């Protein structure tokens, strides 16, 4: 069995041993309920407020504007559903993009079913939104906009600051899903001018099952999970104390090394992209070169299918992911790849490689060699490639 090269850090990351160590006492020693008045409970409460303060500082938010959730998905659901509901007397129109994460996209689709109206902004072939399109979509009844800061599949970084300023000018609230962006690119809520922002700990070496939603003071966004008085009565449920502690610890670690992580990942990413584009035929990079997450590369290899690509790469020790239908458990390829204009058969042959700070140049080189071998092998098996070599029309073109 070859050594494993983990290039799926956009899916999840390994937890930092230091963050695990910081969490452990909160399972067995300081296990009290933060709502309890005795010291055991108050110790836990102190740990939460300390974590909240550190996290808030990293994104230049007010401490009281950080609300802990069970995931980035919950934060997205909360931001969208509760805000649209709270402001429904103003209007029922939401603006979002065609390349949101499923958490956002499916929440917006649910709102559509409840009678809200949603405008789905298109992106260009490189996966970027046009702020002018955004401004043109704003109507008198537009309540809020939600735009993903950095895309989870193709890594493109949107002009959030510019769009948030447009939104503010028109009195429209602005939410961004920063789950992939946080700790990889600068995230400063004051500078960006956003009203809400979602994040998830396990994308930056924290624990799974914990995230947060930033809600700017003064917003009417109501509680989404009803129950006790936790999180300033806005998000009920006994706090995930170890998770919150681990999230703050992991974020501290990442933010202390922000510059070196960013530089290292960018160097490896650029090397990976350059080698694949020059050494493999019939391949395209999905998502523009810049601005792009430093740890994301996404390719489409013509004539091969993504799940086969992933499974054969795994046999060579490389762990990655794909926007192919088969790999996702549905029959449709990724909506993000379709939104950037890829035909279905090309979208099926996509591969996402997401690096980490411990990825090495040798691992990238090994991965490129593995990709080259696997693509040749799968093309030898592909009737589409055979037709291409014989100069026949692509099968899909015949069918459509």
């Amino acid at each position: 069995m070859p050594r494993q090269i983990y290039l799926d850090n956009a899916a999840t990351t390994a937890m930092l041993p230091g963050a695990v160590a910081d969490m452990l006492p909160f399972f067995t020693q300081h296990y009290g309920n933060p709502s309890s008045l005795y010291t055991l409970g108050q110790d836990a409460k102190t740990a939460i407020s300390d974590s909240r303060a550190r996290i808030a500082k990293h994104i230049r938010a007010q401490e009281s504007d950080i609300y802990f959730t069970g995931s980035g998905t919950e934060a997205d659901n909360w931001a969208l559903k509760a805000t649209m509901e709270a402001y429904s007397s103003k209007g029922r129109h939401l603006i979002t993009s065609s390349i949101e994460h499923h958490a956002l996209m499916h929440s917006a689709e649910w709102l559509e079913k409840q009678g809200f109206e949603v405008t789905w902004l298109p992106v260009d072939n490189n996966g970027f939104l046009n702020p002018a399109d955004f401004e043109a979509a704003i109507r008198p009844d537009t309540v809020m906009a939600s735009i993903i800061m950095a895309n989870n599949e193709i890594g493109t970084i949107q002009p959030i600051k510019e769009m948030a300023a447009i939104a503010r000018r028109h009195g429209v609230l602005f939410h961004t899903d920063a789950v992939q962006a946080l700790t990889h690119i600068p995230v400063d809520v004051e500078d960006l001018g956003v009203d809400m922002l979602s994040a998830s700990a396990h994308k930056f070496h924290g624990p799974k099952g914990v995230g947060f939603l930033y809600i700017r003071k003064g917003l009417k966004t109501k509680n989404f999970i009803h129950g006790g008085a936790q999180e300033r009565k806005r998000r009920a449920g006994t706090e995930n104390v170890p998770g919150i502690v681990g999230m703050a610890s992991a974020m501290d670690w990442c933010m202390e090394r922000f510059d070196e992580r960013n530089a290292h990942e960018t160097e490896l990413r650029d090397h990976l992209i350059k080698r694949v584009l020059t050494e493999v035929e019939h391949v395209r990079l999905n998502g523009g070169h810049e601005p792009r997450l430093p740890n994301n590369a996404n390719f489409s290899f013509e004539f091969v299918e993504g799940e086969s690509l992933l499974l054969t790469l795994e046999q060579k020790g490389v762990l990655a992911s794909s926007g192919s239908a088969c790999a996702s458990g549905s029959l449709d390829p990724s909506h993000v790849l379709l939104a950037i204009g890829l035909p279905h058969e090309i979208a099926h042959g996509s591969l996402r490689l997401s690096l980490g700070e411990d990825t090495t140049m040798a691992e990238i080189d090994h991965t490129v060699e593995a990709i080259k071998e696997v693509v040749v092998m799968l093309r030898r098996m592909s009737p589409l490639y055979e037709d291409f070599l014989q100069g026949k029309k692509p099968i899909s073109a015949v069918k459509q």
Partner: protein
Amino acid sequence: MAYSEKVMEHFTNPRNMGEIENPSGVGTVGNAQCGDIMRVYFDIDEAGIIQDVKFKTFGCAAAVATSSMATELVKGKSVQEALEVTNTAVCEALDGLPPIKVHCSLLAEEAIHAALWDYAEKNNIVIEGLKKPKSDIHEDDELEEEY
């Protein structure tokens, strides 16, 4: 995706992968849009026995494994026997497929039928029980709706 060991074994070492020059029959089914295309080539002798069979597949591990297994099941058989190899038989021989991948085994059955149809047309014969295959099994929309 939880695949059986047999599926992974056939995916990793596919049997009968390749082409046959001047085949007695060749059939291609599927749709690149849906992510699966299978092509089956037959070399059938004068007695109607499948002497050789090859396949090429664009698709997931289940698509490759069902192509491999289906070609194994029809190799050396008569045309009539090959017609009786159903998608259920292919699935069973692979120790089952995840529910969402069962359509891949239908594709394998369809590819065999398409190649037999081509053979029958070329030789101007009628194979009893063989219907003209649909060019694209995904025309059958109910399959997709289920998931």
